[in-house]
């Protein structure tokens, strides 16, 4: 879900996906994990890719969400949102009135 979300708005290559996940979500995806998952998501039709000659001198493989891939990405995000909201309600008493994100009530 995290990988699909990182590709929601832009085309990215592998290292950019890892950096996007780390910067926006603090999610550290193992580099050896990412490429097999990208390969499977592409085989399932959720992603598409192409090799682009880069200024760096070597080509890079850019990925983007396909139209059929957007629906399952959205469904996963909605499921996650529902789950995390219910979990936030559960742990609220433990935070002693402090809302998630550091704001005091």
């Amino acid at each position, binding site marked *: *879900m995290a990988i699909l979300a990182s590709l929601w708005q832009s085309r990215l*290559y*592998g*290292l950019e996906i890892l950096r996007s996940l*780390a910067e926006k979500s603090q999610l*550290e995806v*193992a*580099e*050896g*994990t990412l*490429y*097999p*998952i990208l*390969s*499977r998501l592409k*085989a*399932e039709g959720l992603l598409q890719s192409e*090799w682009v000659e880069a200024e*760096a001198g*070597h*080509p*890079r*493989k850019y990925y983007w969400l396909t139209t059929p891939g957007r629906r*399952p990405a959205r469904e*996963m995000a909605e499921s996650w949102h529902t789950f995390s909201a219910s979990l936030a309600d559960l742990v609220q008493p433990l935070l002693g009135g402090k809302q998630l994100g550091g704001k005091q009530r």
Partner: protein
Amino acid sequence: MREIRAHILDSVSSSTGPDVALDRVLRLLGTPEGLADRYTTERLLTRASHSFSPWLLLRTSWRWAKLGVKGTITFLVAFFGYTMAPTLTVWVFLKPFMPSKIGLWIGSEGLNLGVEHPDRIHELLGHWFVPVIAVSAFAFAVGTTQALRWLIRRGSSTAAYPMPTHDSRRAQI
């Protein structure tokens, strides 16, 4: 291969310490065997999610079981279902040869499927044993296959792998 190579080149070229970055990226990619294993597992998950082959589903769920809880649960479902189906089938084939000795018994132990025993007092199915148990075996086989396809399709979209190293901190590239 080409993609992994490009990733290594990108990681090294974007760092101020190429030697350190090279060591780190190779460590985080894991061993070639480990990386190949992950590619193989992902390919099996894709194939299995669209397959009706019990052998492929069982093999895939076994590989997936090594990765975490979802895979373990899937494998247990596969093991249970694909054990019950042939077991019930064996009883169906044995019944004509030992009609009074094999059945669905009720007794002091409760309900039991199998051979007659002093604690098993009354046989429940009679002539209906073969069709009922045959249909049950078929239902177990088909139901297990469908359940595995659903579990693999649903669960593998969020499949995660253990980190190849213990380094979970952001790299100082």
